[in-house]
């Protein structure tokens, strides 16, 4: 199939089924590493870092990046358009016909199932990202990166540091990486 069309349709599907905003697209982006030759798990981890540290919604940034990896700037365009297309249609229908959509008991019941499931899905994606980020392809630990993660995570729980922009952490991580030649 034509790559542009394939990108548009793949991201259309993500836009249609990713419930819970940007991070909820992550499990789908990971599905694509298995089914399409567009990017690897390592590249996905880089995409996450860049999408979190640039302005704009994370989901959109990741889609643009993934599309770019697949077929350059136009790929980014097709992936992003595919991602937002279902939203535009669904929201217009909901806004026009379903005034109390979010208060409908069946919608709420469906979400009482979807929300915990999405948490599980994202947790599984994060585990895969950890696997490629902190271990080499033959499963040897990369101690430097593990140390960075082990230091940053507790710091993120400190109240004063919580509000820091992710880009601050990325810059610190990059500096440590360069200084210690990780």
């Amino acid at each position, binding site marked *: 199939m034509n790559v542009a069309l394939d990108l548009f349709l793949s991201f259309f599907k993500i836009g249609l089924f990713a419930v819970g905003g940007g991070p909820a697209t992550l499990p789908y982006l990971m599905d694509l590493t298995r089914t399409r030759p567009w990017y690897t798990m390592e590249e996905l981890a880089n995409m996450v870092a*860049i999408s979190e540290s*640039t302005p704009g919604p994370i989901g959109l940034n990741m889609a643009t990046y993934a599309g770019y990896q697949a077929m350059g700037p136009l790929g980014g365009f097709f992936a992003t358009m595919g991602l937002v297309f279902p939203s535009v249609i669904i929201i217009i229908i909901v806004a026009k016909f379903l005034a109390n959509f979010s208060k409908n008991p069946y919608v709420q019941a469906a979400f009482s199932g979807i929300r915990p499931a999405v948490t*599980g899905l994202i947790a599984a994606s994060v585990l895969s990202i950890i696997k490629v980020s902190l271990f080499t392809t033959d499963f040897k630990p990369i101690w430097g990166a593990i140390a960075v993660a082990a230091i*940053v995570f507790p710091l993120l729980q400190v109240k004063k540091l919580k509000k820091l922009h992710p880009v601050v952490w990325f810059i610190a991580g990059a500096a440590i990486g*360069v200084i210690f030649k*990780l």
Partner: protein
Amino acid sequence: MKRFKILWQLYWAFLRIGGLTFGGGLAMLPMLKYELVEKKGWITEEELIDCYAIGQCTPGIIAINTATFVGYKSAGILGGIFSTLGMVTPSLVIITAIATCLEKFMYNEWLQHALAGIRGVVCALMVNTVYSLGKKSLKNLFGWILCLAVFAVCVMTNIPTVVMVIVSAVIGILIHVFRTKKEANKA
């Protein structure tokens, strides 16, 4: 002509919002409130909150859902489309520029070291995302069981994500139906 002006204003407002907020849909709330409610008066604060509620329980990126909803309320279907295009523009431009630069330097030794450090940070931030998501979404035993079951299935098999989301929605609805029946029987 007046309509065209509104569409342009919507495009421009959402372009600014998309280009100036970091951290995704939820981080945009204060910015949206300032631009749309206080400055332009296109929607009321209650409508904005509703819109967030709807944005969170419809599929897709929350920021896009909000943009479409606000645009639609202000200027119909075209308004929804122009707002969404505005929101999309900064991501397309910025990410394409960064990806192009990175591609050129990808095999640079220094960049590789920097990326190794950054990936350590990504892991910490992602674990933190899951942690705060879990605090919000896992409020009862049922939630925990479903979450752990989905996690286990996801790690051990290659079942597509779509299937798991649909199945979990059906489970949620079935439990609701079951509970209401039980209550009806009691009464």
